[in-house]
């Protein structure tokens, strides 16, 4: 376990800012204590300083997880955001997409979202920006990338893709082992 290097921090924050913009500051400056990011076995964990101190006493090999896992660095040093980060990303989300009930299931099985399944979308969503996917009653389901901007969506064909799938809560069942 170690703190992130500057490069890694930059990569991570670039990725996060696609979803939550400037709200990254809200993650780091919390009123209830000092929260930081830590790298452990190529995975980035986000948790309070107290827990980090405590966890650092366990042998490296036997420590499987602490706090919340945000994602992992690939071998090519790109950052992959995991679905486990949803709890922290969703409240600060800049751009949101709401799904109709019949499209929920499709998304939870790992499919992209077509326009017929689109219930609502935040105004001024730019193309290829990260979005958080919600159900119509505001339960976060996962995140993806907007395939079209809001304006393009209006004019799009009913079967056209509007959101590319990146991660969804169905992964808790589908690939439990690969999560962390």
């Amino acid at each position, binding site marked *: 376990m170690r703190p992130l290097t500057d490069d890694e921090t930059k990569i991570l924050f670039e990725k996060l800012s696609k979803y939550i913009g400037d709200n990254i500051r809200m993650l780091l400056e919390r009123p209830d204590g000092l929260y930081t990011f830590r790298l452990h076995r190529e995975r980035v964990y986000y948790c309070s300083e107290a*827990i980090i101190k405590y966890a650092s006493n366990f042998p490296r090999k036997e420590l499987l997880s602490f706090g919340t896992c945000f994602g992992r660095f690939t071998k090519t040093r790109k950052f992959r955001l995991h679905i486990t980060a949803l709890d922290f990303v969703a409240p600060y989300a800049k751009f949101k997409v709401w799904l109709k009930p019949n499209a929920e299931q499709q998304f939870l099985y790992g499919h992209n979202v077509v326009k017929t399944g689109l219930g609502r979308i935040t105004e001024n969503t730019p193309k290829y920006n990260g979005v958080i996917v919600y159900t119509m009653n505001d339960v976060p389901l996962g995140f993806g990338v907007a395939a079209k901007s809001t304006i393009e969506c209006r004019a799009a064909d009913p079967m056209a893709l509007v959101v590319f799938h990146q991660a969804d*809560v169905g992964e808790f*069942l589908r690939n439990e082992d690969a999560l962390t």
Partner: protein
Amino acid sequence: MGRRKVTDDKSAKPIRGPGRKSKKQGEPTFPKELAQTEPTDKRKVSSRGKQRARKRLEKDKLKQTINKNTKLKTATKRQSDGESNDEEQINGYTDENQQWLKPKKKKELFDDDDEQNEESMDEDVPYDDQFNEMESSSEEEDNDNDEPKLDIEKQSKKIREKQRQAKERSEQELLTNIQQHEKVQFPSGQEVTKEAPQADLQLLMHRIREVINVLNDFKNKREANRSRKEYLDLLRQDLCNYYSYNEFLMNKILDLFPLAEVIDFLEANEVQRPVTIRTNTLKTRRRDLAQALINRGVNVDPLDKWTKVGLVIYNSQVPIGATPEYLCGHYMLQGASSFLPCMALAPQPNERVLDMCAAPGGKATYIGALMRNSGILVANDANKDRARAIIANTHRLGLTNTIVTNLDGRHFSEHMGGFDRCLVDAPCSGAGVIAKDQAVKSSKDEKDIQRCFTAQRQILLNAIDSINENSTTGGYIVYSTCSILVEENEAVVQYALNNRPVKIVETGLEFGVEGFTNFKGTSFHPFMKYCRRYYPHLHNLDGFFVAKLKKYSTKQGNKKESETIEKEKKKAEEEEEEDDSPEAMADD
């Protein structure tokens, strides 16, 4: 549909009007003479007829005298056969081939006619010739009445008497047979080995009930030459066969329960417990969750009054482990019994809590929810693959204060100590969750149990070592297993009492059976009554055991005790060397 029922009721309205039904022909009416069923009128007999009748009489008398001998023979033969034939059956047949030629249901057909004929004969008014046979038979009987002193009559009386006696005897025999059947029939030695596997299940159950009946009132109902042990052996054998347990586990079960409860327990193991879920209070409330699930077509109800987070699921149109609510972490699929140790542990916010054997994280996430995501929760499991499930579940349910580790519970305190509370849900034989895993019935033996409780003892001692006894809020250890065996429960707690500075405290669970303070000659600490046991047939929960301990001092126990620990360790190591096969322990 169909025709209206014809009633004799005269008040019924006659059908009128122009319709088809009013034109329908009524029921036929018969003239009085025809309507009479029995011909009561006497017919006039012509003089020729009278003559014929007289002739017939003479003829029959002649016949009788001829038949005397033959009839006697047949009667004796019948008796020797031991069959109780009715008199009338053979009456019409007087020839030699009577022994194999028998009238087919003639008796029933002519029963009424016989009486009529008798009447008619009394009046000496014969019918037509075609009734000849019958008349002759009835005539015989008539003659019997008239002349009781004939020696043929005496003989036939004797025969009848003998037949009656034979019948009585056979009836008595039948009765005694029935009685014997109600008594327990012990199988012979050969039978035991031969018929055991394919024995008829219904008969087996019948015998089990009878044996239990006898054992409950042994003094009066026993057979004189059978000992209690024989009965018990038979019962055990039958139960093993009927429910397909191995003898070892059945012995343990018979030791645990009074006879009346054994069957209940075994039957309860054949049915599944209801599916229950626990609301994740970090993300939702029970009422909201129930509403959301009902909208998805799930039939839910609050579990019981002792829990505020449990819901029981009666039936569901959707897979309950894959609804969007489940994936979003609003609830956890969890047996109702696994709420209990967490409730007994009663973790407080801002404490350090250890869950020693956490996978797959059901209890750990409940503890996290009770701590309201504050403090530190360490969820440890020795199996790495199972520990991955803890990671997924803690993240899904939104726990942020959790550290997941993959350490051996027997050496945990070497790495970390100073916890306020610790839950030890030790790996066990699974004798309480037979309904979940039927393999337990036949796969466990003495050695498996021994292996289990050795590990349990080591884990529990280690958990006690990792507790901070000076904690202002805690210092508690909860020990639980999903087994009902005393070896894995009370004996392990007693071992901890002997070797570590701990005492038993109340669990805070208001229901459940008290732990054993005495069992088969071994006496445990009197406070063992504070432990709680749960049984499938009493509480409709999985078989479960919960004990709560409090550590009150740092000292590691006296010298003598530490020696025993060393011995135990050595023993365990030797055991491990003996077989390196991975331990197949059922774990919740």
